[in-house]
């Protein structure tokens, strides 16, 4: 033991400060675009947190991200991401940090100039995707991060998060739901031929890295939009609500086969 520690300390002492995880960019270091995005996302999360607490009688909250906007990471550059790993931090790419090819790709789906595409992107990502990530966080908060990773498939987590987001938005902010849905109709029409028949848990699991490629997020967004449409159909067919979907999340913890 002493030998190992002595070796470790002596080699460490040589100046090996080489780490696998980095400190995130502090909020003060963000530029104006990043701060604006962070604030927009944070506002959505605060509103969601307040509604979640009210609906659950104070049993559930979104956790530390609500109290600490620096946990909203918007400073990733050249990578197109929308990610919540359950580590009390979310990652959303801002328009200005996308590469030119990524901006052009987004604009091409809607056949609009970059200026209009930028406005659409900001609304879709800082409003709708922010709500989706709050939905993911709700799944983690209600079911527990470790339990979710051990029992739930990523496809199901995304599906349940989108159900929460659709119900939240239709109850609290119908305009943003309608806007996201109209964007999603375009995205779905662009990629139905490519991924229409692949919208399955198995395909998602086997192709996650390709679908969520930070160079081209098309696949992830297509699946998100399919989840949105399915969630809306479910909401109408079963008359579901934010509260009902929250109870479904809680009920998963009691099921023998939780991956449904």
């Amino acid at each position, binding site marked *: *033991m002493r030998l190992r520690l002595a070796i470790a300390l002596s080699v460490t002492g040589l100046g090996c400060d080489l780490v*696998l995880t*980095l400190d995130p960019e502090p909020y003060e270091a963000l530029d104006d675009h990043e701060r604006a995005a962070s604030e927009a996302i944070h506002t959505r999360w605060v509103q969601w947190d307040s509604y979640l607490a009210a609906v659950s009688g104070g049993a559930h909250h979104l956790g530390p991200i609500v109290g600490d906007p620096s946990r909203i990471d918007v400073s990733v550059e050249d990578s197109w991401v929308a990610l919540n790993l359950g580590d009390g931090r979310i990652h959303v790419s801002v328009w200005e940090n996308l590469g030119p090819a990524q901006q052009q790709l987004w604009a091409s789906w809607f056949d609009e100039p970059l200026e209009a595409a930028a406005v659409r992107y900001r609304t879709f990502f800082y409003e709708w995707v922010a709500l989706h990530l709050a939905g993911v966080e709700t799944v983690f908060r209600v079911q527990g991060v470790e339990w979710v990773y051990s029992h739930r498939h990523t496809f199901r987590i995304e599906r349940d998060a989108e159900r929460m987001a659709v119900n939240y938005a239709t109850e609290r902010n119908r305009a943003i739901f309608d806007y996201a849905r109209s964007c999603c109709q375009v995205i779905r029409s662009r990629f139905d031929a490519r991924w229409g028949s692949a919208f399955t848990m198995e395909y998602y699991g086997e192709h996650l890295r390709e679908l969520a490629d930070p160079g081209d997020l098309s696949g992830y967004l297509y699946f998100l939009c399919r989840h949105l449409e399915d969630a809306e159909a479910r909401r109408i067919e079963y008359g579901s609500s934010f509260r009902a979907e929250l109870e479904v999340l809680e009920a998963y913890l009691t099921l023998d086969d939780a991956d449904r």
Partner: protein
Amino acid sequence: MKNVLRRRSRPFRKAAVLAVPTLLLLPAAAGGAETAAVSLGFGWFSPLVDPDVSEGYGGSATLFVRFADWLGARAAIDVARHDLEGSFDDIPYPYTNGDIVFGPAFEVTRPGSPVALRLFTETGAYWSSYLLGLVWTWGIDFGSTLLWRMTDYLGLELGLRYHLYNLGPVGARELLCPRTLRPLGVVDRLDLVLAVGMTI
């Protein structure tokens, strides 16, 4: 950290208590230096400074081929596992990593002596598997082994190696920090491995 070391060292110690007396019962070495040997080991693998990745343990398989009294070559495959800590504490995916490396080895002790000290350096492909996927990078290592030739065909080897990896990409994927999604710089690892060596 103390608890982790204590917990992980228990099976290691038990194995050593069983293995060493067994080896001592075998006939003594005749003094010949092996031309080729394989060794299989288990030990402590650790990123040296990291707030989110714990010390770990792993295994190692090494082939040594001798070209001259003082010169040989090594090829090694290593696998290690580290739990995630800090903000990743709840996420039950470990950080696993390893390497496939080869390079020259220099024997600095007298040929055929009961104890052989070798210095070596290696290079090869290093893999890292974690939350964000499987990533291959290029790396180097250097270190030394202390071999106790217990018989003509069996020895006990203690190896210490220092690795630097993520020196360059192997394939399209980059090694990203799971906390910030930023590309990582050079990563290091220290291994201390006890191995059983067999002459072939």
